[in-house]
Structures are given as structure tokens and as C-alpha cells.
């Protein structure tokens, strides 16, 4: 029977926490970038101008149907060759996950915007609003509330996807875990602790999301 010994792992707790911090930084960067990119892509996709909607559609479909790890390798190893720029693991990861999650967010935004009744557009136009005013003041505020559950789900997916950066040596939680496992010769304990850290964090976020959803549902601003 194997004797579990967590003490070497716990003694290096700060090492793992540093990785956890980097995971959070990367998730926050990609999330804020992804929301902006997603909204822009969705608006472009819904545009009547074909030169806007076509490229947006291509970007969305390409980033949704290719594996994120391939995208990361492309941005990390491939892109610097075309652009002749220095690529850091963080920059490559932030870029990849911003666009990748942006493509998924775009589809959520689009579904939300399309779900708003035509009457809302017509009413806004009737009182003299322009198209962009109507989008900003009337349609988007309502759509965002409806999109909330899918947005949260995607954000949680994003946090899990950030583990892929460990493969290009960005010191996220998983990368630090790998290092620690090799240093302490305790892979079982290290990977178990790290799995639990992810589990607790993500469960906590899901719990918060579920509570917020319920509150929205109670105030009647929100329908699923």
C-alpha cells in the first residue's frame, strides 16, 4: 500500500500559489479581451455589409472548430516568423485565448441579440433612435441578461483551457505542478493537490454563477 505524504507538497505551497496567480492573471486577461473581441465579432457578423460579416464569420468558425492547442502552437511557434516579433509564452497565450474565447463569446452575443423581439427595435426607431443607439441603449442591455448563464459557462471553460499554456512553458498552476512533481518525486500528491485546487476554484465560481442566475430570475429581468 502506498503511503501518501503531502508534506513536501505543502512545504512548497508558495510555488504552487505563484502558478495559481499566473493562471488567474491569464484567465482575467483573456476573459476581458475575449468579451471585447466577442462583441465586435458578433456585431460584425450581424452587419448587413458583406465585407464585415464574411471575415467575422470565418474567424468565428475557424477558431471554434480547430483545437485550442493547435492555435496556441501556431501563435507561439508560427506567428513570430511572419511578423518577425519576439513572442513570449504569456503573449502567445493571451492572444490565442482572447481570440478563441472571443469566437465563442461572439456566438453567445449573437444568439442573445437575435433573441430580442423585433418590436424593441421598431419602438426604439419610432422614438427616433439610430441603429447604434438602439443597440447600445435598448437591445444589448436586455440581451446581456439573457446571455449570462452561457457567458459564465464559457468563462469557466476558458479557465480550464488556460492549462494548455503549460505546454509552452508559461508558469501557470499546471506548469508549476509539473516542475514540483519532478523536484519532489511526489507526482501523485502534487497532481492530486492541483486537481483539487482547480476543483475548488471552479466549483466556487459555478456556485456564485448559479446564485446570481437565481437572483436575476427572481427580479424577473432574466428568462432561461
Amino acid at each position, binding site marked *: 500500500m502506498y503511503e501518501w505524504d503531502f508534506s513536501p507538497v505543502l512545504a512548497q505551497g508558495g510555488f504552487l500559489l505563484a502558478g495559481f496567480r499566473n493562471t488567474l492573471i491569464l484567465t482575467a486577461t483573456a476573459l476581458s479581451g475575449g468579451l471585447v473581441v466577442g462583441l465586435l465579432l458578433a456585431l460584425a457578423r450581424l452587419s448587413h455589409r458583406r465585407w464585415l460579416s464574411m471575415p467575422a464569420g470565418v474567424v468565428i468558425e475557424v477558431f471554434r472548430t*480547430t483545437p485550442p492547442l493547435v492555435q496556441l502552437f501556431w501563435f507561439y511557434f508560427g506567428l513570430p516568423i511572419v511578423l518577425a516579433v519576439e513572442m513570449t509564452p504569456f503573449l502567445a497565450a493571451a492572444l490565442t485565448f482572447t481570440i478563441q474565447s472571443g469566437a465563442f463569446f461572439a456566438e453567445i452575443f449573437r444568439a442573445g441579440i437575435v433573441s430580442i423581439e423585433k418590436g424593441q427595435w421598431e419602438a426604439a426607431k419610432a422614438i427616433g433612435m439610430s441603429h447604434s443607439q438602439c443597440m447600445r441603449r435598448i437591445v444589448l442591455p436586455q440581451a446581456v441578461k439573457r446571455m449570462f448563464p452561457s457567458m459564465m459557462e464559457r468563462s469557466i471553460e476558458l479557465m480550464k483551457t488556460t492549462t494548455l499554456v503549460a505546454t509552452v512553458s508559461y508558469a501557470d498552476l499546471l506548469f508549476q505542478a509539473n516542475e514540483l512533481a519532478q523536484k519532489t518525486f511526489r507526482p501523485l500528491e502534487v497532481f492530486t493537490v492541483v*486537481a483539487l485546487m482547480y476543483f475548488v476554484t471552479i466549483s466556487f465560481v459555478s456556485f456564485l454563477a448559479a446564485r446570481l442566475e437565481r437572483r436575476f430570475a427572481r427580479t424577473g429581468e432574466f428568462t432561461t
Partner: protein
Amino acid sequence: MTYNWNFHDVFVNWWALAIGVAGTLKLFVVCLVLGMSLGLVIALGRRSQNRPVRWLSTLFVEFFRNTPVLVQILWFYYALPILAPIEISPFMAAILGISLNSAAYSAEIYRGGIQSIEPGQWEAAKAIGMSGLQALRRIILPQAIRRIIPALTNRGVEIFKMSTLASVVAYVELLQQGKLVASLNFNPLEVYTVVAAIFLIILYPIVRLTYAVERHLARSD
């Protein structure tokens, strides 16, 4: 700024990529079959009358949905062999990680599908003398599965994309072979572009098909 793309060296090594595609397909099929069937078992476990079974299935689903699949694969590859006296190959570790992860996700899809069937269907099946299992197999599941086909297909696409993670434990699949070719010829840009294109060519038709099925089901329901 003007870079000369040269795909020639990639196509010269087409056989290496072909071996990769075969490895990806093999992993995909195994994980698809295992993930989808285990998912159904766990979905039924969550509806069980037996409390421990229900709790265990719920715990399984929550655990595998709330941890990253790459952590799961690495756990099975580096940690499991310490606990159990078995040799874990990269293929095995990838199968365990991806299948169990997909089982947890598809269990939720099955559960949603089964719940969406009106209680009257169960009652009618019981009224004509079917047992719970018979009602499930003959009446409920055929209807539920029809409704969840788009969600299950999406899961299948996700499994296909997830198979690239097996490259982290050096299983020979498309991305792993791409790395090999790129390191031989120092042409990562072309190689990873081709690899991405191969995934796109395989998966895009399936995604389009899902859209079509979704529209069809929405109209017929």
C-alpha cells in the same frame, strides 16, 4: 515583412502527418464510444433510487466537469501508476482522461434529455405493464436521444479537439507528428497551418451538419 510560405517541406512529410491522423482517429473513436456509453450509465446513476449510487454519480460528474482535462490526463499518466501496479501508456492515459471527462459532460446531456420527456410517457408505459427499465429503453430513450443529438454531436467535436492534448504525454497523434515535422524542417508556421487546416476540413462539415439537424429538429418539434 514579406515571408515566403513554403509548403513543399510539409507535403514531402505527408506520411508522418498521415500517421498522426490515424492516431488521432483511433483515440477519437475509443474516447467517443467509451465517453458516450459511460455517460449514459452515469446519467441513469444520477436518477437511481439508491442514494449512494446517486451521490457517487453526482460526485463523478462534478469532479470531472470542474477540473481541466489536461490535469486529468497528467494525473492518470504520472500519478495513477504510483497507486496501482499497472503500466500506463500515453494512449491509456489519454483514453482515461478524455473518456471520463466526456462521460461527465455527456451524462449531463443525457440527463437533460431524459428529464425533458413528459411524465405522461412514463405513466402510459407503466399503465400498459412495462417495467421502469422497459419504459426507459423502449419509450423514453428513443425520444430523448432524438432531442439531444445536436448536443451529443457537439460533444463529439469537442472530443476530437481534445485528442490533441494527448500530445502532451507524447501519444502519436496529428499535433505530435506536426511537432516532429516542424522540428525536422524548422517550418512551424507552415506545419501548424496545415495541421489546423486538417482539423478544419474534418470537423467543419460535422459542425455544419449539426446546425442543419438543429434547425430540422426545431421545425419538427
